[in-house]
Structure formats: C-alpha cells, structure tokens
C-alpha cells in the first residue's frame, strides 16, 4: 500500500504541472493586456503600468512563469482588487464552506443513488427499476441552478420548512468556534445543538440540490455494474455454494460492483465542483464559488485565477483519493503498483 500511494502521488505530478501551466497561460498568453485585466476595468493608464511592473509583466514569458511558480510555492495567489485582501487567505477562509456543502451533497446522492441502483439491478423490470431509469434520464437533464430554485420555492416559499436561502447561518445565529471550518462538525464539537440544527437547516436545500444533480450518474453506474456482477461467474459460484443471499449480494456482488462506481466518482466530482459554483450563487453560500463569481463580475482576475487553480488542485487530490480507495478495495490494483 505505501508503494501504491507513492506511485499514485508521482502520477499526479504531470497533472499538477499541466494545471499550473494552464492557469498561468490563462492570464499571460492571451490576446489583450494582462496588466489591464489585473488592474480592473476602472484603472488609469499609470495604474496599469504600475501593475505591469509590480507583477513583472514587463519581463519575458519564461521569467514570468518562474515568478508565478515561485509565488505559488510561497502560497501567494496575488491580491484581490475589490477587497484588497490576499487571494490565498480569502480562499482558505471560504474553502470549508464549499467543502462542507460539496461533501454533504455527495453523501446525500450516494445515500440515495447506491441503494436505488442496487434495488433496480436486483429486481429488473420492477417498479423500482423503472423509477431508477426515469431518475437517471431526467437527472442528467436538470440544470442544477433550476433544481435549486424550485427547491427554494417549494420548501421556503410554499411550505416554509426551510430557512431563507441566505448563507450558512440565519442572521441571528453565530458561527461555532472554528476547528475544522465545517459548521456541522464544529458545532457538534462545541456541544452546541442549536447551531448544529441551524446550520443543518441552511445546508439541507443546497446539499439536496447537489445531491439530486449527482444522483443520476451514480445510480446509473451502480445499476449497470451491479447487473454485470450479478450475472458473473463468481456470483454464480457463491449461489451454488448456498451462501446466504445477504452474503452473496453484499460481500460478493456489492463490493465488486462498487469498483466501477468509485471510478465514476472522478467524473462526478468534476461535475460537482462546477455545479457547486452555481448552487453557491443560488443560495448566497459564502464559499469560494461565489467569491469567484463576484470577482468575475467585477473583472477582478487574480481571485478567479486563484479559484481555478484551487479547484483544479482539489480535483487532482480527489482523484488521487479515489485511486487509493480503489486500491484499498481491489487487490489487483495494489499489485499493479
């Protein structure tokens, strides 16, 4: 296992290099004047010149790239024009909000999609199989911001069950002492039941929105791979050995069927991280997505660049985690390492 981790770590290096080059190129090698982008729309010519100097944009491209990488190594993602704060600090402060939302969304979709896919595969042609098919076809067609708005209308406006879609806590709640940055966990650690409930209420709709969004690919993959595994030779063997149907379905079929599902999670995360931006906008969620959107509207480029880089690095890290999880379950993947 340690060699597997090392090997996979090494394999992420080309991706990371690619990511850094692309985020660099996004600003420097494009038509137009990067200094003007960084200076923002309202800047004067002198201000632009000053920015050009201070960012080293008057240097040749390779030199700029080295500067950029050095700044990255120092953890310097530049400064936001609108807030005047270092981008890295802003992103670090907002990341837990996004992470909590995305992970809970994934949890919600797994909790629904995996049992749905399994039931559909073990009862082909049944009502639940049809339901699964409808969910997977309709699910991929739902624009995530549209789902979010419908949920807000139904659960906030019509039913009044959910709080107003205005961030992580209501106006009268105060955040728990920061330990992990996840309000749910921090409030539990602080033993603060009220804050826990308050933040859970705020999280419910956006997490559900993301969950519905990720439901379709996971359910589809679970159903397909479960069907394949159930008709495989080794499940036939397990049946012929008279193993209890629970053992056959869970220990034999399910664990094998999860392997392709885990692989699919890579793609699901790609979509989830993107959808996260839209959901944060709908629910005024103070995460890095809404930070980036605000910066985009203000043509404040450094935060956008920092955001794209952060998301890409996160995505590479998530893919690494997925690989390792796969290796944990499948001995064959461990051997390849």
């Amino acid at each position, binding site marked *: 296992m340690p060699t597997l981790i090392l090997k996979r770590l090494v394999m992420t290096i080309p991706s990371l290099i690619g990511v850094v080059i692309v985020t660099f190129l*996004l600003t420097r090698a494009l038509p137009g004047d990067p200094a003007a982008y960084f200076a923002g729309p309202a800047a004067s010519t002198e201000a632009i010149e000053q920015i050009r100097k201070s960012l080293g944009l008057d240097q040749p491209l390779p030199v700029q790239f080295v500067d950029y990488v050095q700044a990255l190594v120092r953890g310097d993602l530049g400064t936001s024009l609108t807030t005047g704060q270092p981008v890295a600090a802003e992103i670090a402060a907002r990341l837990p909000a996004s992470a909590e939302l995305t992970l809970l969304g994934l949890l919600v979709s797994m909790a629904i999609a995996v049992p749905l896919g399994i039931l559909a595969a073990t009862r082909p042609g049944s009502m639940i199989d049809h339901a699964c098919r409808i969910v997977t076809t309709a699910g991929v067609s739902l*624009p995530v911001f549209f789902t979010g*708005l419908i949920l807000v209308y139904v659960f*906030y406006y019509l039913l009044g069950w959910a709080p107003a879609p205005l961030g992580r806590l209501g106006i009268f709640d105060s955040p728990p002492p920061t330990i992990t940055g996840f309000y749910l966990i921090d409030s539990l650690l602080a033993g603060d039941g009220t804050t826990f409930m308050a933040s859970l209420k705020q999280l419910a709709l956006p997490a559900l929105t993301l969950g519905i969004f990720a439901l379709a690919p996971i359910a589809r993959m679970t159903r397909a791979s479960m069907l394949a595994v159930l008709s495989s030779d080794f499940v036939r063997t397990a049946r012929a050995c008279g193993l209890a149907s629970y053992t056959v379905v869970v220990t034999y079929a399910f664990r094998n069927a999860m392997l392709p599902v885990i692989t699919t999670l890579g793609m699901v995360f790609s979509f989830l991280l993107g959808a996260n931006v839209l959901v944060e906008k709908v629910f005024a969620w103070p995460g890095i997505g809404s930070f*980036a959107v605000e910066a985009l509207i203000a043509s404040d480029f450094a935060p956008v660049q920092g955001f*794209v880089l952060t998301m890409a690095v996160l*995505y590479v890290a998530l893919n690494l985690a997925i690989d390792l999880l796969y290796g944990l379950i499948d001995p064959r993947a461990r051997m390849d390492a």
Partner: protein
Amino acid sequence: MTALVATMRHARYVVSENPVTGLSFGLFLLIVLAALFGPFLVPHDPLASNTTMALQPPSAQFWFGTDQLGRDIFSRVVVATRLDFGIAVASVVLVFCMGGLAGVAAGFFGGWTDRIVGRIADTIMAFPLFVLAMGIVAALGNTVQNIVIATAIVNFPLYARVARAEANVRREAGFVEAARLSGNGEWRILVFQILPNVIPILVVQMSLTMGYAILNAAGLSFIGLGVRPPTPEWGIMVAEGAAFIVSGEWWIAFFPGLALMIAVFCFNLLGDGLRDIVDPRRRT
C-alpha cells in the same frame, strides 16, 4: 443507396420500438422551428418593457407571465431558443472540428502527435470542466463568442479520444493498406479513407454532448458571463428570476428553466436514440 435504405428502415424500427426516441425527434423539430422562426411568431416584443404590467402571473394575455420590467416571458423564452441553440450548435461544431482532427491525427500518426494530443486532453481533464470554462471566459473576455470557445475546449478531450480510438483501429485496416499500396500519401489516406469512417461516430458524439453544451453555456450566463441583459437567454432569465423566487413570483425563473430542461432532455434522448441507430452492435 441500399445502405441508406437499410439505415432508414432501422431508424424507423428504433423509433417504433422506443416511442421516447420518437418524442425526442418531435421535440427537436419544435426547438429547431422555434430557433428559426421564433422571433416572427411570438405575440409580444421580447424587449419591450411595460412597467404597468410588471410581475403579472401567467394569464391568457401573457401565457408565461411577465417579468419585473413587464416583458412577456413567453416571447422571451421562445426568442431565446435561437441564441441558446446557436451557442450549443456552434460550440459542438467547433469541437467537432478541433477534437475530431486532433484525435484522428493522434490515432493515425501515433508517436509525438499522439503524445501531445493526449497530454492536452489529460490536462483539460485535470480541471473540473465548468470551472475551467469559467476561467477561459474570464481570461478571453466576457462575450458570447468566448462562451462558445470555452464550451468547445472543455469538450475537447471527449472528441479527441473517440476520434483517436476510431482512427487507431482503422490505421492498419485492409482498405487503408490497399490505399497505401496503390501509392496514396499518408495525408490523402487520412482525409479520404480515415475521416469518412470517423465522422459518423463523431456525429453521434455531437448529439450526445449537445445537452451538456447547452447546460454549460446556460450555467455560464447564469453566473453573469457572456450574454448581457436585456438579451433574452434562458440562463440569464433564470438568474433574473432567481431574486423573485423568495417572494413567490415563480414564473419568471420557472419557464426559461423549464425550456432549458426540456431542451437538454430532448438532446440527451436524441443522442441515445441516434447512437442506437448508428451503432450496428445495438441492432437487434
């Protein structure tokens, strides 16, 4: 000719076997009609505001209600079809050319071409795609044209990989060897022997990614990129209506969102149906 007849017969069979595919063909026609003739057919001017008629719920006069400026949402939704459909088609055609050519070259020539195309595709795939699209539009400039480009770029790996795989298996195929022996240059073979075989598969790919392209473009305009108000476009209309959801004026965001959803649904079904028609392995 006989092949065409056989395909048509098979298409009819697929449609009759699966009425949902038929339905999606119908919807597709409707969308194309709306894109072509929508602006001439709508009952109201999509840009004409009328503050005395602001925020009217759906009625006989305003089928989908009116927005905060009193504009007719039905007219705006119909007129927006052209822009949304156009963005999706343009980006899909663009990536069809870029990804298709790059992939075919990679699969056919192998070696360095293959490695470079593969690396580009891998690098794009290392980003969450929507996030990369945001970054590209932000960097290239906030225009509709750049939304098309960004949507094409994030779809590039998909097309390049499909085209590469197809070109690769055909590289050593008998008819290609025959063409080689009869003295055709590699480029000639590429253009006249390989491309025609890869194109049908890429066309299926186009219809499969149309839905995603529309979603991607609408998502970008939802967060305020590309399309500027007052231009009618589904994503931006949903964004405008979002503020009114909490006060109960659901129709402003609902109808453009519904149109978006139906369009995406239609393209996804159509893509699946088309794959069944083109893919001979699925012929039963």
